Structures are given as C-alpha cells and as structure tokens.
C-alpha cells in the first residue's frame, strides 16, 4: 500500500501519523535523534555545572538572575507546549483548521519566549556579563543560547510545516511531520525544565 492511497480516497486513518511504515519509522528515528540531543544538552549541562562558580571578576548567578522573568519565560514555554499537544489532538481528529490555529499559537509563544530571552541576555551584557567574562558566563551563554537556538529552529520548522499544510493538506505524508515537530517542541520544554532548575533556581540558591 503506497502512502498516497489513504489520501486519494479522501479519508484519513485514525492516527494518520502512524498509518504508514514510513510515518512510524520517522517517529522512531526522531526519538533516536532526541536521545542524541539529550546527550548533547547533557554535556553542556555537565560543563555548566562544573564551571558555574568560576565567576572570576564578573557578576555571580545570584546577582544576575531575576526570578519573575525566568518564571514568565517558563510559563510561556509550558503553555506553548500545551498548545502543541492540542494541535496533535486536532490532528488525530482530522480537524485541520484548529490544528493550524494551535500551531500558530505555539509559534507565537515561541517567539515571545525568544523576545524575552534576547531582552534578558541584553540586560546581562549591560551588567558586564559577557560571553568572555568568566567560565560561568561562557558556559551559561552556551547552554542557554543553545536552547534558544533550538526554540528559534522550532519556530522556523513549524512555520514551514504550516505553509506545507496549506499547500498539500493533511495527509499520511504530512501528518508525521506535524507529530514529530510537536514531540520536538515538548523536548525543548523538557530541556527548559532542567535549565530553569539547574541554571536559574540553583544559581539563586548558591
């Protein structure tokens, strides 16, 4: 059975992202990729944890971080994760319009998060916390910036997927892409859980 059979008769299977072998393999392959991503972020975390007290003459974590701003960023990302879960539910019910609306909500919240992060980094730099200030600052910007880059990539990716849905509609070919991008977005949120815990909250504790 080719991937297009489902599409041409105008009826999608119940979980279109898992209807074809290709779709299921894509999901499995994506999880293996996330395993690798976990390792990648893990090394950055390991470096940060090892170096977080080496502030040299620069500002310390306790001095820099503002909890309300971090909390706002956390909420934005958590709600965006919920929005992408709703997008997947709409996908399962073959409701294309609500799905696109939830994906757009996800993207907008992602952009809001990025805006907040840019503002935050800007504030830190003006307080003398630059990339080369200390081992703490370098490992901080590498870890948090890397996460921010993942958010930016996710925004771009989901944006392109929305464009593709407009062009090709929801099929057994496009459904796995949407599903996998939602998994990616949740993964970004999971990484952020560790960032606000290890970097910000533990930074405040000392």
């Amino acid at each position, binding site marked *: 059975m080719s991937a297009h059979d489902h599409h041409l008769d105008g009826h999608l299977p119940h979980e279109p992202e898992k209807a074809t072998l290709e779709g299921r393999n894509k999901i*499995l392959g994506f999880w293996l990729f996330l*395993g690798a991503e976990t*390792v990648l972020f*893990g090394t950055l975390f390991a470096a940060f944890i090892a170096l977080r007290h080496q502030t040299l003459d620069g500002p310390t974590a306790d001095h820099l971080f503002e909890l309300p701003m971090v909390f706002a960023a956390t909420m934005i990302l958590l709600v965006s994760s919920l929005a992408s879960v709703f997008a997947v539910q709409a996908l399962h019910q073959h409701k294309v319009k609500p799905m696109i609306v939830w994906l757009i909500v996800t993207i907008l919240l992602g952009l809001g998060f990025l805006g907040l992060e840019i503002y935050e980094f800007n504030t830190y730099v003006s307080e003398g916390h630059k990339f080369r200030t200390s081992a703490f600052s370098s490992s901080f910007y590498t870890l948090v910036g890397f996460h921010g880059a993942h958010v930016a990539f996710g925004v771009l990716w989901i944006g392109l997927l929305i464009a593709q849905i407009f062009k090709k509609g929801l099929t057994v070919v496009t459904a796995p892409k949407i599903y996998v991008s939602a*998994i990616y977005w949740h993964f970004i949120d999971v990484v952020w859980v560790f960032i606000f815990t290890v970097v910000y909250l533990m930074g405040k504790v000392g």
Partner: protein
Amino acid sequence: MASDHAVSSDPKRRHRHEGPQKHIVAFVLSLALTIIAFAAVAAGEINMTFTYIILVAMALLQVFVQLAFWMHLKDRGHLFATMGIVFGIIVVFTMVIMALYWVWW
C-alpha cells in the same frame, strides 16, 4: 512496531478519540511542580541541601509527566523510542556525574 500496524489497519478497534482532559491534568501537574520549585527558592531561609533535593525532585517529576503524557511515550508501540531516549539519559547521567566528580573531588 508490527503489532501497531495490525491495530491501526483494523478500523473497528481504533475509533475512540482521546479527550483533552489528561493533557490538561498534565499541564496543571507541570504548573504545580514548577510553582513548588520557584516557591522553594523564592522563600529562601530553607536549608540549602533540602532546597536542592526539592528542585531536583520537581524537575524529574515534571520531565516524567511530560515524557509520558505529552510526548506519548506511555502509548503502545513506543518500546524502541523509550529505549532510545533512556540510552541518552544513561549517557547524560554518566557525563554529569563525571563532571561533578572531576570538579568536586
């Protein structure tokens, strides 16, 4: 994976759409765990070691909730996916412990 295919090509068995309830529950749980973590730090005054334990516990719980519900890892046919991510987690813990050992001892 093979059993998954057999199920999805059987039209009778798979027509129950899951509602949003369990995702809202997962959201509220995540929210509560986040607020506890922030509150523990904002309150200050608590013993430092104890605060660390709270923070790590809240983070691990929240990650578990999100992996299981939002990323559908608890759903059928996710054995190999789970193995992939668990392998990553094992490598990560090895690395973090190594880094801590290196720096602290």
